[in-house]
């Protein structure tokens, strides 16, 4: 397996794409800004003592400080205007937090009401499960946290992150099976004792290792760049996921670090799916470039479909349930509580998508294995430069 991994890393094209991806990633991260970010960043830096407080602790102090500034601070010509603006930004964050708390309270009250009126076993199970999750996430993990974080942890990256990752893994894996055909090394490997079966197994394991390393490094670089860009403390990795703007109503009790780990795992799963496609395509295409084009196109189809179905709720639901590359859009699964009725039991959308992707990956891999181990013996081999080739 280590030899297959080494072979993967020995391709120059990979390092070129990796370097370009990194440059693109950094450029896009540092150019990206969301409304109000700059103001809040200044606010954060000017009033660092608020960071250690919860909103409940901060609100009376903030009110007192605003009162001390007096009504004349609201005037733009006042020397205290800048300080008042900073404090108003904090007030904005507190109001947002309160709204979130109110909405959550309403949501839980509604769920309790629905639970009492539930007619079916599935509805009862589903609502009980949802309540359990929300109670755990909000009362034990989220509430004690400083809510000022949320504005800074706005982690909307956009689609380009997923496309870059797809490009990276397709480039990484394209030569996995085809390199030997291009060089003629397959003649030696296929005629060795362990032969094609062992080689296929080793290549898949090497590919999984490569995908894992790529997912881990890529995610780490992406979030580190984001962290540096937003000027955040690395201690915030222990904050609950609900601190992130998009996930404020997430029912799962996850920390930001756990969320990032989940992102890595999903990327590994997506990478394995692409690996399976490449294994299958490589049974028919012997050139790395052809494998790159065909596999890249095939792997991109779900993402393209997602773009096309963006405003079609039913289509998106089907796509989400099927998993495929939608798993890279974790926010679709974590933003709110969504389950599917499986034999009367609620199964989370994400779990279902993971299972579908695992099943599909396994199916494609088994098919590729059959073709790989049986195909070549019945086909004319790729011509090498041998003078004695018939």
């Amino acid at each position: 397996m280590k030899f297959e991994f080494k072979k993967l890393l020995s391709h120059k094209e990979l390092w070129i794409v990796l370097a370009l991806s990194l440059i693109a990633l950094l450029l896009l991260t540092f150019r990206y800004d969301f409304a109000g970010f700059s103001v809040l960043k200044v606010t954060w830096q000017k009033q660092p003592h608020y960071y250690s407080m919860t909103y409940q602790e901060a609100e009376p102090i903030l009110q007192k400080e605003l009162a001390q500034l007096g009504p004349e601070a609201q005037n733009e010509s006042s020397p205290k205007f800048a300080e008042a603006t900073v404090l108003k930004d904090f007030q904005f964050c507190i109001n947002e937090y309160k709204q979130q708390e109110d909405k959550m309270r309403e949501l839980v009250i509604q769920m309790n009401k629905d639970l009492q009126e539930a007619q079916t076993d599935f509805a009862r199970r589903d609502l009980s499960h949802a309540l359990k999750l929300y109670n755990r996430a909000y009362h034990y993990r989220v509430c004690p946290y400083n809510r000022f974080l949320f504005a800074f942890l706005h982690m909307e990256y956009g689609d380009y992150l997923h496309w870059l990752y797809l490009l990276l893994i397709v480039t990484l894996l394209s030569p996995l099976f085809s390199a030997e055909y291009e060089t003629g090394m397959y003649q030696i490997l296929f005629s060795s004792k362990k032969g094609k079966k062992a080689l296929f197994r080793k290549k898949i394991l090497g590919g999984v290792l490569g995908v894992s390393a790529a997912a881990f490094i890529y995610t780490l670089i992406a979030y580190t760049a984001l962290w540096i860009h937003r000027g955040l403390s690395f201690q915030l990795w222990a904050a609950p996921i609900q601190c992130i703007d998009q996930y404020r109503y997430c029912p799962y009790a996850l920390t930001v670090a756990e969320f990032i780990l989940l992102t890595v795992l999903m990327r590994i799963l997506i990478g394995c799916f692409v690996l399976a496609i490449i294994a299958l395509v490589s049974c028919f295409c012997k050139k790395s470039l052809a494998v790159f084009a065909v596999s890249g196109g095939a792997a991109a189809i779900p993402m393209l479909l997602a773009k096309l179905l963006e405003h079609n709720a039913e289509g998106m639901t089907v796509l989400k349930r099927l998993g495929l590359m939608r798993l890279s859009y974790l926010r679709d699964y974590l933003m709110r509580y969504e389950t599917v009725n499986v034999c009367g039991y609620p199964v989370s959308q994400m779990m279902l998508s993971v299972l579908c992707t695992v099943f599909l990956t396994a199916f494609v891999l088994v098919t590729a294995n059959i073709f790989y181990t049986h195909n070549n013996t019945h086909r004319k081999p790729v011509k090498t430069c041998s003078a004695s080739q018939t």
Partner: protein
Amino acid sequence: MLCFTDLTKKYGSFFALDRFHAELDCGIYALLGPNGAGKSTMMNILVGLLAPTAGTVTYDGKNIEEMGDSFRALIGYMPQYPGFYLGFTAMELMRYMADMKGLPRKDAEARCKELLKSVNLADHANEKIGTFSGGMRQRLGLAQALINDPKILILDEPTAGLDPKERVRFRNMIRRLSDKITVIFCTHIVSDIETIAKEVILIHHGKLLRQAPIPELVHDMEGKVWEILPDADETETMLDQFPRSSLVSRNMQTVIRIVNDTQPHPKAKACAPVLEDVYLYMFGDNGV
């Protein structure tokens, strides 16, 4: 004993191998034939890269397709252009091949070192293959083919890219091995096999033309090889007239050596044939 029985490989209506039949025991068997004769097809079937359309290959009476892994454990294969991984060192490649050929890890390290030493690459064991010359890569190709101590060694143009000294060294090595194993030596360089081959297998258009020891083949050419000292203006005309001919030097003079069933010219004198004449007779001008 390795037996090819009515081995046939067909691509559409084209026969790459046509009821090829041969029997091979211990020793070096030189596979001679022009491009497209079917040599590579035969070797690819033997190493399991191709399935025959018809016919069988048996080893000690057992069908090699049925033997599967156990047959592949017996073979060592050195293709002409193996295209090794340029980012690997020689030692890494040997370790990789040892793993692919199922050698126990504890024995592999010593075996790899021993073979690299025997092909004179011990000093370059930790150098990247990308920095190797053509000759060094050929030697590495031989080392990897021998890693599993094969009973059947298949060499496709093994001496291409070797300098004369390396070529002699290579031949000696193969000769020593051939006492106990079957070596199938596919080449165009007749001088490589002239002194070491036990038998020559002549193949053309996918068919076996002849399988015989070199002295027998050469003996059959008696009276079919001629030399003539041409007049200055005759050389080009005679070379065109007799496609199975070559220019050679004799006592500071250039003479034309012609392979022909009958005396090609009144001035032509019969001379002693060599293996190259057999090749020319069989395959020159598209063969007999």
